[in-house]
């Protein structure tokens, strides 16, 4: 079970031992002890009543038989509950019937209470609390955590792993205790009636347990394989329909169908193997339990016929044996659940224990007014042991200046921007905002003063107004509209049927790239930040709507210190200073005019965009020097 997870999460090594995890889980159970005890207590009462209920039925048979054949053995009354002597047989039966009925009713109520208590323990107390904790922690974790883990694995920790964790409480702890108690109770009751019969009829139980355990061991990887094959089939459907245009333009419908048929067939083939095993397993277990009954009937029947056991007791035995078998079979489930719950809990604890790398200082500086002057002093940054992403950055930006950054993939542009809102801290050197080290500032104040527009706009499934007010949910409609106007978004928003209340679909597919980016710009400037970061805001925007975004950028950057990552000349030429980054170092700096006069990456990029074909061949063949 744990194999696929360790593959996806590099960090999920066995950092904590099983016993440590176990201890923490027990602590968690202790925190919910009242409800746990209530659940357990109810179950114990239910168990006892269940055994009694069975025994009353058998008693009825014995009373009748004794009445008809006085030679038959005396009814065996449990707990010395002999009926008053004056009672006729029919009255005794009536009393027994009443007892059974009353107890059935009582059991019904208790059962209801038990299920409700167990439900509350799981659904109201444990799961929401743990989920909220994990979620709250997740949101505060530093980006390194998100860089290191696939998003699917992170999401699983809040959903599936929390469920696995709680299954320790109800599936392992409570069920385990109940299992032990009931096995003991059944065994004690049976032994007290007839020890040898008990021994004989339980002789096959260990075999039953082994068979169940072996099967579940075999089945788990098979089911995992099955899930994989089904996933693969679903992927074929998803890709075949998502890429339908590609399939059609190349006339590959038949080939794509053949691929699906193969995936579908693989599922069927593998299923057949599972079916064969399952169809043998079920009846085998059933046969084994029935063999217990056979032993009971043979030996017990012989005892009854010899007058050593009452007929009613035999009937009770049959019922108890059935319940006993059920518990033995559930033992395998408890063992499996234990394994799964431990690995789930470990992944949950990993999140809860992860270090929050970027933290607010203890005694932070809270400036009342931020001017937006920035100074990088020999700043370097690297992700782990890899080659440094940024090396020795040293520059100063005056309040209100616009800095453009140009560079190839992996040159460190986005990383540079990430340092400003302290998504990461530099590994060497320091960054000063208005003369104060970023690490000395109040983190919330800093982040509220750094507006960020990301490469992909990352809007949320909520209304446009809620998206713009994302950083300040209490913002007034007037504030929201003002921001939208600055971002040149007001007009198109008003043109939508529901205006600001239009709900964005998942990934905001109902808006164009340029529209999404303008909403993202409005979102950033609603907070009136002193510093604005724009990470290639026109990257995924059609060139013919690019100018709309650029207009928004122009009006948003007024009176703000701005960092803008860009490739297109149209954007670059607006900046006060341009930095050309290569492999984490600034290789060129200056204004557009200055850089155009130098021979280097900048002027080449510029000529490339104006369609100079000689330049094209040169860059492509020689690479960039």
């Amino acid at each position, binding site marked *: 079970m744990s194999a696929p997870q360790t593959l996806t999460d590099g960090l999920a090594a066995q950092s904590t031992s099983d016993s440590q995890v176990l201890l923490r889980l027990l602590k968690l159970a202790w925190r919910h002890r009242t409800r746990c005890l209530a659940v357990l207590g109810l179950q114990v009462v239910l168990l006892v009543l269940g055994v009694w209920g069975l025994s009353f039925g058998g008693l009825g*048979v014995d009373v009748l038989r004794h009445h008809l054949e006085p030679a038959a053995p005396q009814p065996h009354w449990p707990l010395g509950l002999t009926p008053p002597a004056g009672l006729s047989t029919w009255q005794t039966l009536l009393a027994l019937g009443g007892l*059974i009925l009353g107890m059935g*009713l009582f059991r019904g109520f208790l059962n209801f209470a038990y299920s409700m208590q167990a439900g509350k323990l799981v659904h109201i107390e444990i799961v929401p609390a743990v989920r909220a904790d994990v979620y709250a922690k997740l949101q505060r974790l530093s980006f390194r955590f998100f860089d290191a883990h696939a998003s699917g694995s992170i999401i699983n920790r809040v959903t599936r792993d929390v469920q696995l964790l709680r299954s320790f409480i109800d599936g392992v702890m409570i069920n385990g205790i109940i299992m032990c108690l009931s096995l003991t109770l059944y065994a004690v009751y049976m032994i007290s009636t007839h020890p040898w019969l008990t021994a004989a009829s339980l002789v096959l139980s260990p075999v039953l347990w082994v068979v169940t355990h072996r099967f579940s061991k075999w089945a788990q990887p098979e089911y995992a394989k099955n899930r994989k094959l089904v996933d693969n089939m679903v992927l074929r459907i998803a890709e075949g329909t998502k890429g339908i245009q590609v399939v059609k333009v190349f006339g590959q419908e038949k080939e794509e169908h053949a691929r699906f048929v193969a995936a579908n067939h693989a599922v069927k083939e593998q299923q057949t193997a599972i079916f064969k095993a399952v169809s043998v397993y079920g009846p085998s277990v059933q046969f084994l339990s*029935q063999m217990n009954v056979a032993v009971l009937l043979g030996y017990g029947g012989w005892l009854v016929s010899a007058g050593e056991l009452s007929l009613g007791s035999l009937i009770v035995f049959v019922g108890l044996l059935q319940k006993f078998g059920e518990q033995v079979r559930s033992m395998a489930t408890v063992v499996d659940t234990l394994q799964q719950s431990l690995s789930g809990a470990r992944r949950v604890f990993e999140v809860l224990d992860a270090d929050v790398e970027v933290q607010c200082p203890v005694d932070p500086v809270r400036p009342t007014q931020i001017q937006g002057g920035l100074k990088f002093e020999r700043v370097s940054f690297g992700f782990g042991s890899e080659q440094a992403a940024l090396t020795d950055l040293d520059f100063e930006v005056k309040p209100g200046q616009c800095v453009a950054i140009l560079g190839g993939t992996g040159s460190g542009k986005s990383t540079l921007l990430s340092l400003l809102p302290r998504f990461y801290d530099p590994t060497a050197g320091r960054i000063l905002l208005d003369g104060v080290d970023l690490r000395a500032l109040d983190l919330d104040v800093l982040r509220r003063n750094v507006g960020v527009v990301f490469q992909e706009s990352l809007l949320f499934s909520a209304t446009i107004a809620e998206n713009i007010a994302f950083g300040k949910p209490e913002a007034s409609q007037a504030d929201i509209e003002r921001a939208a106007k600055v971002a040149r978004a007001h007009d198109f928003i008003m043109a939508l049927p529901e205006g600001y209340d239009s709900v964005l679909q998942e990934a905001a597919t109902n808006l164009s790239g340029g529209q999404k980016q303008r909403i993202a710009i409005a979102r950033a400037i609603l907070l009136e930040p002193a510093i604005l970061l724009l990470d290639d805001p026109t990257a995924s925007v059609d060139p013919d709507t690019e100018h709309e975004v650029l207009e928004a950028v122009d009006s948003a950057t007024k009176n703000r210190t701005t960092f803008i990552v860009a490739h297109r000349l149209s954007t670059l030429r607006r900046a006060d200073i341009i930095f050309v980054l290569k492999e984490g170092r600034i290789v060129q700096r200056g204004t557009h005019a200055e850089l155009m006069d130098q021979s280097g990456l900048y002027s080449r990029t510029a000529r490339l965009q104006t369609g100079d074909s000689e330049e094209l061949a040169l860059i492509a063949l020689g690479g960039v020097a």
Partner: protein
Amino acid sequence: MKGSYTRHFARDGADEAVQRPISFAMVKRLYHYSKAHRGLRNWLLVMVSLRAIQVPLVTWIITQIVVGPITQGKSEGVLWGVAGFVAFELFTEIVCVYRSRWALMFGEAIVHDLRNDLHRHIMSMPLSFFQRRKIGRFISRMTSDVDAVRTGVQDVVFVSFVQSGQALTAAVLMAYYDWKLFLLMLGMVPILWAITRYFRSRLMQAYRQVQESFSRVTVTLVESVTGIRVIQGFVREEFNGQLFEDLVADHSKYNMRVAKQTAALLPLLEFNGQLFLAIILVLGGAQVLDGDVSLATIIRFLFLSTLFFSAVPAIGGQYNNALTAMAGAERVFDLLDAKADWTDKPGATVLSSLEGRVEFRDVGFEYVPGRPVLRHVSFEVKAGQTVALVGPTGSGKSSMIKLIGRLYLPGSGSVFIDGHDSRDLDGQSLAHRVGTVPQDNFLFTGTVRENIRMSQPDASDAAVEEAVRSLGMWDLVNELPHGFDTQVGEGGGSLSLGQRQLICFARALLPDPKIIILDEATSSVDAVTEARLQLALQKLLHGRTSFVIAHRLSTIRHADIILVMSDGQIVERGQHAELVAQKGAYFELHRQFVGE
């Protein structure tokens, strides 16, 4: 504003019915699907019939041993009885092996066939069919809906058969021993049935609410993880935390609703058994005392009644499954019955070769009636010419290239390829001779080689490599971790934009098409990649008729014809220099583009 997140989730599929009444037409169609597996089906019926009799018989044998040799004190008889019991039990379980194996295989066989039919049908639909539908719907038709049908064919029919057979056999035996006591029991069946139905339908609703509230939890979670930069950048941690807690609490509420229904249903069913035990003891006991009934009958009733009553909730559950299966079947067959807007004409012209001449003659086109996207478009392109399409978003550029690739047919006027009206052509034969590079650079999960070969599955490795080499990108592919065998993730995620586009170029080039259709990607890439892309592009287009929705100045400049589109019409046409000199729409676009 709080709690608004829950409000906004109009989840996909929320409007779909969970259950539908049993319809004869639907059953008939499903029955039709079983014909391909009639051997399996018929053997399964034999096994099921055997099971229906065997199970009560096993119980009956036990009671016979109890009331016979055991009560009468015949020790030897007990042993013979037990031996018979073991033998019969073994036989029963062997039948059970095949009964469950064949049922599972039968269900899977039908699911498998349905999925293949669905997929074949989907693939045969024209592109317009996909425009109106969500991918998630296709997936749920082929997974959850088909699985509902599986339960229908594999369980509903056969389990109900076994259960009613068991109940009937038990009933016959009980009625044979004491019909009065049996009638009394029969009176309880409707009550039990009503209880089961009532709770089952409420449980269904509750389960659905649990699923919906859970999908709200996961959607929020997914957005929180993918958008973590925005959340931290905008200091939203606490606000979101509260929202999430509300969503989780909402989800718990529905979970508790399920718990409550189950908590009530199970004890009620159990109580029913207890009630019956009491009734048999008291009423039956009274009759025994009067001498009307033997003790053996009471014992038989104790055993057989359990069997009889367990059938009622089981059949109730199956009835529920049947209704769910009907809803699934209805949606599956709806999709299978969906008609294509158009298909190839019978006797369509199969193109064996192509020169590459293209003509639009007064073409009009609309996706939605009354909202034309192309109006009176006419132009002629000679073999080997490059056409650049420019114009603002929504001006009709992409519709135009879809008409050339015959993904759609023109609404009015005609598109001629080598002089053939596109309506008279065989779609596949045209597709095999036209190379297309889509804007989103869509790649399939698989290796780089498999993706390139996708346009011509029978191409040799050498041909694939030659296509890559001729585009001047051999070293780029070799730089990938496993060269041509590098796995391309879902949607090509592990490659850079530039790399993806180059693979799409190679894919289009592989069958050596005479017509190239290219929708240039808009995303900007770094200078080196950009330069290489432009060079590869020139090689790709060389000597072929090509239509390019151009975003690069260099592409536009090299075009033989530039068509400037606006509002579904061609407003200017000519070459770069001419158009710039005209100082019209093209001049404006060009000015915006170079950012002057």
